[in-house]
């Protein structure tokens, strides 16, 4: 995997994960994706390609949408990280999650956490996106099942509901 990982000692990394102070020991070049999944048990972020093409491992890092397979954990030190597990509570889902469920935005579900975080990021930047904005905003998240149309519909619906509130 990574040659630096073999030779470097573990170091302490601390960050906020879904609002929670988290400290752990990790090799600085360990992928943030692996730390989230293996050390913190947050398995919502998925590995699809390991090279930043598919977006299944997307998380929010200080409000930016990043591919966590490309982020060395040391780089996330001190940051606030939001994963799919951090956008809903046990009782209530995020409006985007509701809309994905309603509109058929999730089929096999493997791209869904990353896709929804991509949509969260899009609506934060642009609360009333035009269809072309949605297409562009989600272009870094690949979905092989849906052909995207029902995802666009879900994002539009969630945006309208947010604005209506």
């Amino acid at each position, binding site marked *: 995997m990574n040659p630096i990982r073999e030779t470097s000692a573990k170091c302490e990394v601390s960050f906020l994960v879904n609002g929670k102070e988290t400290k752990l020991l990790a090799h600085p070049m360990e992928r943030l994706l692996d730390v989230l999944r293996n050390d913190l048990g947050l*398995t919502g972020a998925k590995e699809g390609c390991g090279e930043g093409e598919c977006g299944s491992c997307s998380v929010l890092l200080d409000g930016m949408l990043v591919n966590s397979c490309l982020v060395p954990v040391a780089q996330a030190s001190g940051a606030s990280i939001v994963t799919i597990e951090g956008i809903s509570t046990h009782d209530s889902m995020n409006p985007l999650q509701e809309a994905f469920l309603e509109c058929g935005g999730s089929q096999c579900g493997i*791209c869904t956490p990353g896709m929804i975080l991509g949509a969260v990021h899009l609506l934060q930047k642009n609360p009333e996106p035009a269809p072309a904005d949605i297409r562009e905003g989600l272009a870094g998240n690949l979905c092989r099942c849906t052909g995207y149309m029902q995802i666009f519909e879900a994002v539009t619906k969630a945006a309208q509901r947010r604005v209506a509130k």
Partner: protein
Amino acid sequence: MNAPHIVGESVPRKEGRDKVTGAACYVDDMVLPGMLHGATVRSSVARGKIKNIAFGPSVDWNEFVIVTAKDIPGKNCISLILDDQPCLASDTVNHSEEPILLLAHADRHKLRKAVEAVSIEYESLPSVHSMEESERQSTIIWGSDNTLKSYLIEKGDVDSVWKNAAHIVEGEYFTGAQEQLYIENNGVIASFEPEHGVTVWGSLQCPYYVHKALLALCGLPEDKVRVVQMETGGAFGGKEEYPSMIAGHAALLAIKSGKPVKIVYDRMEDMVATTKRHPSRTRHRTAVSKDGKILGGEIEFTIDGGAYATLSSVVLSRGTIHAGGAYYWPSVRIRAKAVATNTPPHGAFRGFGAPQSLFALERHMDRIAQVLGISPIEVRRRNFLKPGQTTTTEQIIRENIDLNHLLDRALELSDYDAKKKRFAAENKNGIRKKGIGIAAFLHGAGFTGSGERYLDSLVGVEAGADGVVRVLVSSAEFGQGTNTVLCQIAAEALGLSYENVAIAQPDTSVVPNSGPTVASRTAMIVGKLVQSAAKGIKQTLVKAGLLCDDYTPEQFRSACREYIAKHGALKSYARYEAPGDVYWDDEKYRGEAYAAFAWAVYVAEVTVDLTTYSVTVDDFVALQEIGKVLNPVLAEGQIIGGVAQGIGFALYEKVVWQNGRMLNNQMTNYIMPTSMDLPPIRVFFEELGNIHGAHGAKGIGELPMDGPAPAIVNAVEDATGFRFDSIPLLPEDLFEALRDDSADQDVPSPARGTA
């Protein structure tokens, strides 16, 4: 019992909440105590004898579990149809990336280094890398003639039609390999305990295929092999057969080490080593009357099966039967064969041979129209199958399908006539040329011919003391909606709410064998069995005097409670019964090939940019008759997703081969459509019904893969005036063809063909 209708409603996906919250558990999300990671050492040559395996000095091999073919307790094969594919190559390899040796270690990083430290010496043997080379038979790499399977369909006297033909139209068409590109790579975990045997958890479509393969490989009795399907992140046929291989590997490592072993491929390994859609070549020679009617034809359909037989015979069968499409052929001869090459075996991918032969046919129909000087619409109209007529296998069309009506509606929805005229006028100027193309086609649902009879599927439904009903099937959910529609059918059959019905995780120790999750068979065939089994629960309760014909959910619940208190368990099973009118002759390849066909007309509108040579699909209309729509949102999702994959098949997805090995095995250089690349995909349904399916449903999963490629390439021809008979059609291919043509107007480009 006044329950509202549940079938036909867009109830939310059963496992949807887990999927949108990230809680759904895929195999890589699962960790077992003491678990090791497994890896595969693969062949670096296309064909050769293994002379020596050396373990490099940089690794402490005592730390590793090492498995070779010698460690296989049972038969060294992946048991499927012919059993010709070894689980681990022992003395010869027949394709690059063929598994030879397995390693396991707790540390994935050390494992990676160890794989690199194994060096294998080969004596190389001549290898074959194209269908043409394989057909020449100068090097025999499989059987006695490199032919994995062949079929011959003959209807009428085709030899007599040529002399009366006003036109004889010929064409040759090619389709390339296509990667399924499910976003979740292949993966399994296996464990072994002497008293319980082998258990495998995995990302897979067909639990009982894996079960069968493990029985043979491990030499264990049926009750000592258990296969559990985890949430599966896309499959599209790509997890029909290969999971048996990976499960076998993990099981061998688990047996040898006594510890659970996880093997999850990374993207590069998944793309380079596992199955893809069969590349194909189709040749048409068609006799046509002066009024545009097909008199007869010869069709030669050839697919590249790769190094082992695996599923090629069945893929070939479906491609062969669909080669005549939705048209009436008074006479036809179809010769089909799957040939061996030294590439990793090609396998199942949505459509299963039909997208290949239908691409050829629907391009060829446009060619016939051109030769006759009639419109692509008219040539189809004059040859559409009608009720009472027979298909190429002499199956009588019994349903009341009106393809002219479907065509008219698709033309109207796409505004075809107006656009056709407008584009013709506008294309005279400018470098952006617009075109519109259609494809009309059919797709058979369920296993071919006698296939469903052999499968002999069994389905169970169980009710608990709490009145909650559970569907017991081995049919897997991998995005297409199995869980949801089967629960809808059971709920409707019992007059219960959707929330009152659950579905068991496919686990061979819990669920009966309802057959593989393939061939667009689940909603139609398995759905009908779920309906019968669910009704069986009600009948049992009524017979026991615990329930009247009319009941409330509360009465149902207390009846279940009482029944279970007395008898222990409340289960009902239903087994497949072949309809009396489905006759099939496996020898002559004649008869009722499918219990039902879905029918469709697709229209694609494209822009070809002559500066960049790129093709953009601007609009897409997908109209289909699929029997009863069980869940509109899910059904629409199936069609849109299939069309998107079809657009990729036509315009984006190119596997680059070098000596039988995929060179572009990354998402960076194998390009699938993104959200920016697709047009609005507009989906419309017609519902004629189907007596063989639950509530009149037909299969729909594969249908949408068949039409997009020919509709798009027909539109590209409409835009540019050039024939393109080979896909994928990338900008560089357009560039080559159009540049050659402008350089020398007198010499037709190779892409123009020879009709």
